[in-house]
């Protein structure tokens, strides 16, 4: 369904031929951001440890937000007026802000968790978990 809507968005802008490529790039970046956010959601549920969940959330969240906002900024562009450029510039400002702040907050949270004596999983713990899962499967 999302491909259908994307193709209609792109084909509507064929009438103004200069904007076809810009809108196509914007829609593609939006869909790519959704893919990265799917990775974040799956990682947040499936990973066994706080630090691995932090890994999934920090990276996927930053990249998917940057992709989606940039894609929407490109889809919004329709002419070269001053207000349109200002809008794109504001959205790129949000992208820059998130590019700086999300890794910072991830780092601060991870440091707080580490000084709060939350230990990461080691090899032995992973082996124990795997053995327990194998027993539960064999039963």
């Amino acid at each position, binding site marked *: 369904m999302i491909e259908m809507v994307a193709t209609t968005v792109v084909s509507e802008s064929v009438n103004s031929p200069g904007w076809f490529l810009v809108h196509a790039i914007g829609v593609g970046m939006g869909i790519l951001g959704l893919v990265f956010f799917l990775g974040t959601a799956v990682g947040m549920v499936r990973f066994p440890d706080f630090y691995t969940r932090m890994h999934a959330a920090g990276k996927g969240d930053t990249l998917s937000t940057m992709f989606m906002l940039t894609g929407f900024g490109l889809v919004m562009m329709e002419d070269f007026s001053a207000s349109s450029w200002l809008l794109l510039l504001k959205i790129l400002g949000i992208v820059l802000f998130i590019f700086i702040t999300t890794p*910072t907050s991830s780092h601060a*949270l991870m440091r707080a968790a580490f000084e709060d004596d*939350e230990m990461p999983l080691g090899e032995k713990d992973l082996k124990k978990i795997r053995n327990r899962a194998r027993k539960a499967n064999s039963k």
Partner: protein
Amino acid sequence: MKEWFAIIMGAFLLVLMIPILYRIIMGPTGFDRILGVNVIGTKTAVILVIIGTLFDRVDMFVDFAIAYALLNFVGAIVVSRYFNRTVPLHKMERPKPRRRRSVRT
């Protein structure tokens, strides 16, 4: 048709927020909850831009998105610094303090 692209993208974002909401509710440690709230807050900035598309007032809603991203960052930093400098979280949650893992082995 640009509005339909915005609507479907927002709907997919909301659907993908459900697993993170699960992690916020069921998370074994408090830090998992803070992390989930941080992720959802970052995505809310995107959703605000999408809502601005639907109302044709993107220039106004982009400012809201900037303010929301700023508040989200400040909230995460304040919470992490607070837990970093004061009593450890598991001492607040549990009576017996010891080094442990949140995953039961």
